[in-house]
């Protein structure tokens, strides 16, 4: 009985230690709603499972701690020398564990089995976090949180200053950004791309369509009549191909020759290159 009592007391004590945690880490909650608790100091071996996180890590000056990346991670150029663990479609827990990470950062696209597997299988404790910024503000908060996890200054102040300088256009042109053409697909309301467009004073055509990355119809694009069409670069169709589509001749963007090709990574990837993409969009909108 006494032994059992001791066991209970020690168990409660252990529990209370765990829940206290390290006061300096308090309040880092990732986008899966889980608190990130660092017991072994700031992580030194990081596996990044999404391209924007890789960019953020390099921006924060901890690129040298990244031991593995996905094959989609292509920026900054230094990443080329970092080994890859495949990509979203062919990740395996074993391959990731092989890099002996103490921190794995993912997003919600990464299958839960992989994230759970990483937390559960290793004898060493691996911190697993997932971030999915879907707006300018949540991007900055993500950078702040990752800086906190890595125990480095967050450098978001200079980004905020840069963003402040971007002015928005008064004319409010409707902008259609095509992710894929058959069926036409764009980004919807609560996305990073939509937020970028509203920041420069445009109206994202996709805001009127249900879903984060909705498919729509050629008919609705003709009807919603965008003033500007943006296509990703590289893309399987050229501006000429788009002009030639049935019924597209009546769209303002086609009539006024306002079809632009933009580096798809900049537009789709919430990353510290935000000033670059905002400046590009601003140039397009005032062109």
């Amino acid at each position: 009985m006494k032994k059992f009592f001791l066991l209970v007391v020690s168990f409660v004590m252990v529990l209370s230690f765990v829940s206290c945690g390290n006061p300096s880490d308090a309040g880092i909650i990732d986008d899966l709603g889980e608190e990130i608790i660092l017991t072994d100091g700031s992580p030194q071996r990081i596996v990044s499972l999404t391209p924007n996180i890789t960019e953020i890590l390099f921006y924060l000056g901890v690129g040298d701690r990244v031991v593995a990346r996905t094959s989609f991670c292509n920026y900054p150029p230094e990443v080329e020398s970092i080994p890859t663990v495949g990509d979203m479609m062919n990740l395996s827990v074993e391959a990731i564990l092989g890099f002996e990470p103490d921190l794995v950062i993912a997003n919600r696209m990464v299958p839960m089995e992989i994230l759970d597997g990483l937390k559960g299988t290793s004898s060493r404790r691996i911190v697993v976090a997932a971030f999915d910024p879907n707006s300018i503000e949540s991007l900055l908060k993500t950078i702040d949180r990752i800086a906190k996890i890595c125990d480095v200054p967050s450098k978001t102040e200079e980004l905020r200053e840069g963003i402040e300088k971007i002015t928005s256009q008064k004319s409010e042109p409707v902008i259609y950004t095509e992710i894929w053409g058959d069926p036409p697909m764009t980004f919807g309301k609560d996305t990073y791309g939509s937020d970028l467009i509203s920041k420069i004073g445009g109206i994202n055509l996709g805001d009127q369509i249900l879903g984060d990355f909705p498919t729509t119809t050629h008919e609705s694009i003709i009807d919603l009549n965008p003033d500007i069409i943006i296509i990703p670069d590289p893309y399987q169709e050229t501006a000429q191909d788009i002009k030639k589509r049935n019924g597209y001749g009546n769209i303002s963007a086609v009539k006024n020759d306002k079809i632009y090709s933009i580096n798809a990574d900049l537009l789709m990837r919430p990353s510290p290159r935000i000033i670059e993409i905002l400046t590009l969009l601003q140039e397009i909108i005032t062109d």
Partner: protein
Amino acid sequence: MRNKHIFVLLGISLLITVSLGIVIGTSSVGISDSVKAFFAGIGIGDASAGDIAIVHGVRIPGILVAILAGSALGLAGWLSQTLFRNDLADPYIAGIGSGAIFGVNITLLLGLQLGLLGMSAISVSAFIGSLLACLLIWIIAGRTGSTGVSLVLAGVALSFVLSGVNYLIVMYGRDILSKSVFWSWNGLASASYNDALILVVALIFSISIIPFFLNGINAYLLGDEISIYLGVDPKKIRRILFLLVALLTGTAVATSGLLGFVGLIIPHISRKLFGADSKQMLPGSLLLGGSVLGFAYVFGKAIIPHQQIPASVVMSIVGGIFFLYLVIRRPTW
């Protein structure tokens, strides 16, 4: 006599479907504006240029391709059920679906520029992929005398092999998954007059050939032995049927993606409505296939603003439930 009435009704329902396809869409262009735009497009009256572009550039080719693809698949469904002498057969049984997806995946993976006759690279590769799958099955099954059973087995086996290979391509090819899935479910999204024309050619070719073999097909349905006894070479009929199924399904796949279930359900309903005689099944599966898929296409446009629920999805859900109802009501099926 009774059949004549039903055919007239089907003809009328086809016309209604076309009209609905013209006035119903995903955009804010309403019924009266659509009618005005339709007539303005053929030189009667006036309408805004945008409305004309929507009606004549998007809605009309869309509904035409949906109806023609439905007819092609209805016909192909009947022909494949005849070929295999099995009411559970559908045109995709011969590995055509996975062959088409394989073609599309390879094209996306290698970035091949296969555009031909105004068709996109994806359409052309789907067509080539489905025909290659058919050819392969024919060659494999031919080694065992190309009986119905050997064709089905070869088709099923090839489907598995290609599905596995398709997954491998998707695993390693960037962005291929979403593109090929969207194409296969929503192939009607970019329907054009050119697609309609290609379907018309395939349909006219098939419809003009089949009447020469209608008696042969009726004899073939009674079994190889009886068919030989009646002076009809079953191998010849099988060859023709297989060729036509491959052509019709391949064309439908290339112009409108994978539209499952049409080829299975249409011949069943047609058989119930008109009887199993080939003379009735030919026009029956054509008209019924066109109306049903056309209606599914229009229905899918009317639900969520600015978005189209693919006809294949409507067919699977609504068509599936309807089919279950038929099965329950008429257990003799």
